[in-house]
């Protein structure tokens, strides 16, 4: 839509003198304002550029900027630069990762955990999304989604502590098992890959649920009904109709959850144990340890970023091939 200043002025002079007395009324009648509006709304292309300017600026300064800075630091031999030290560019920080197998274990452990937890999240949230999209009436769906969003009103750390309260030796789960007479001594859930998994699945569930819900919600009911008419059972209908048609949602959800899982720091620190050290903790170590270790931390973060990017790209390609295969 373009702004028609003359029409607006005519309209105002015809009958709306009260509007002229308000701030906005005076502003709209102000010459420079008209000139600015004409300039900015002259063409749809210009309107688009103006609308896109803020998001682009945001992405450049808040997302790409820090990443480029991290990349720059990873290629230096000293940061922050101490007095009397000259900074120079080097690839040694990257060589340190590939040259020392100590760091491979947490790296591959992180990728494995992220893959396993993503799969678990998918298995757990798919039935929820299915139920929500297919069995809850339209007018109640928003209410259900809102209920699912409630835990996200508080931060990651608070929710992680909630898991600790549930799974601790004196936590609700152990108390319930003890009350039911199923155990004599508390089961040590905490500080294991199990407690870490519970925490990460809980924290990422919504990122999986929403794309799945979106994909399932678009799926016409008639397709399942047609399959049923042709004699397909519930499992066959799910396997041959619902699942292939929601691959896009699965792909988006898995990508989101996988990427988030590779970067978790606080949750593994709080819920994990001695054998669950993830790469984010290794990276953080380089920033905590006093000394000239930031460039190594930045290099390791870049390596993890690239690895996650490659894995998700391959995964997306596979899903695309799968989609094409199903539709062929």
């Amino acid at each position, binding site marked *: 839509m373009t702004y028609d200043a003359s029409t607006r002025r005519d309209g105002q002079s015809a009958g709306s003198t009260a509007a002229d007395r308000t701030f906005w009324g005076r502003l709209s009648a102000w010459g420079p304002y008209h000139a600015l509006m004409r300039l900015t709304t002259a063409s749809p292309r210009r309107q688009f550029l103006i609308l896109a300017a803020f998001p682009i600026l945001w992405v450049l300064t808040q997302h790409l900027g820090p990443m480029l800075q991290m990349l720059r630091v990873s290629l230096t031999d000293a940061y*922050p630069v*101490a*007095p009397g030290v000259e900074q120079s560019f080097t690839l040694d920080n990257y060589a340190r990762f590939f040259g*020392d197998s*100590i*760091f*491979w*274990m*947490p790296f591959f452990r992180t990728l494995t955990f992220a893959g396993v937890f993503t799969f678990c999240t998918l298995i757990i949230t798919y039935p929820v999304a299915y139920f929500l999209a297919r069995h809850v009436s339209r007018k109640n769906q928003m209410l259900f989604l809102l209920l699912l969003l409630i835990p996200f009103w508080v931060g990651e750390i608070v929710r992680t502590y909630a898991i*600790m309260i549930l799974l*601790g*030796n*004196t*936590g609700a789960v152990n108390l319930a098992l003890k009350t039911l007479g199923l155990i004599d001594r*508390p089961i*040590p859930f*905490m*500080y294991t890959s199990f407690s870490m998994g519970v925490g990460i699945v809980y924290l990422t569930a919504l990122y999986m649920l929403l794309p799945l819900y979106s994909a399932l919600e678009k799926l016409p009911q008639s397709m399942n009904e047609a399959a049923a008419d042709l004699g397909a059972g519930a499992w066959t209908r799910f396997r041959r109709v619902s699942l292939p048609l929601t691959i896009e949602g699965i792909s988006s959800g898995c990508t989101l959850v996988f990427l988030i899982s590779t970067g978790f720091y606080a949750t593994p*620190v*709080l819920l994990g*144990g*001695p*054998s669950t*050290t993830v790469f984010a*903790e*290794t990276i953080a*170590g380089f*920033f*905590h*340890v*006093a*000394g000239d270790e*930031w460039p190594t931390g930045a290099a390791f973060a870049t390596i993890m970023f690239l690895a996650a990017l490659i894995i998700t790209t391959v995964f997306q390609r596979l899903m695309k091939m799968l989609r094409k295969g199903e539709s062929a």
Partner: protein
Amino acid sequence: MAKLIYNRRRFLGTAAATGAALASPAYLRRAAAQSGGEVNIWTYNNFVPEAFKEQFEAETGIKINIRLVDDQGKQFNLLAAEQPNPTVDIMTVAGHRFLQFIDSELLAPLDTDRLSNWGNINPTFSESDWATINGHKWGAPILSGMEVLSYNTDYVTQEEAMTWQTLFSEEYANQTAYIIQDMMSIVMLMKGYDGNMVAYMDDPDKAAAIVEEAKNFLIEHKPLVRKYYDSGAEFQQMMINQDIVLGHSWNGPAAALINDGFPLGMTIPNEGSYGFVYTYNIANNAPNPDNAYTFLDAILASPEIGAAMTKASGFISTYKGADQYLTELEKKSTSFPEEQLANLQFFRAEANELKYSLVDPAVEAIKAA
């Protein structure tokens, strides 16, 4: 700088108003004290008593901005990143980390002539060998702590807790926790070596072999430990939740639990342990140096403030006579029998570069194993 005075009536009024048990003096003559501005402090939780903060702000007009830190390394990196225009005036550096900060020109030498209350610090801390470097004082000692073996008295006996070996015993498998970095020094001590590594400064090969031995020991015993932790709060939570019954800890968080009535004991085991001293230091190029000195002189003004810091943090006050203001339970939780104290030595900084160049990779290896 304005002269500090002691005024019990004003202290009682403030204490009553805040409802705090903390006893502290009026710090400055009001007329001379309204200098205003702010002082920015990086410190650990509870190291600036809340009642002191309120009274100091009211009497001086200087606003105290506290940023909590939980790690010496993080503090170093933050400050290094901010130099030469730091946002901080006062940091909290452990005495054995002085050298690292001084070498990087992050600390300003302390002008003790500007601190009329400097004499309130016990000379054991203010005049010890680590406190003077390059002919200067670099910090005002406020609290002292040590690495101890803490144990739940319902499950572990004091006799068992008199040796670090219990921490690695099958009997308490998966009921223990420790900070790996600190345990590396302790394991070296357990095995009869110098955990400060000062003795091996001229023999880096021997130093490397000792660190390797300590590393292998901790990797071998990794299946027995429940959690490698980082902060005192984590330790307290694990104890309260009974996720652990035995663990290496700093005495501060352990003493705080004891004062809360938790059945906890702590020992300095027979093999020995290390002590450290927290100091308040002025940052090089601090934005508000005058306010920083005003704050330092005020916080050193009376033993009651030292006692309040002990009550809140659990660490032992370095102020003369601070123990007079502690309850019997607080005294008990912040003191050790003479025979145990004989096992204690302080962390030293001379060999830090050699030590941490070996220990840091070893810690990563233990975590990764």
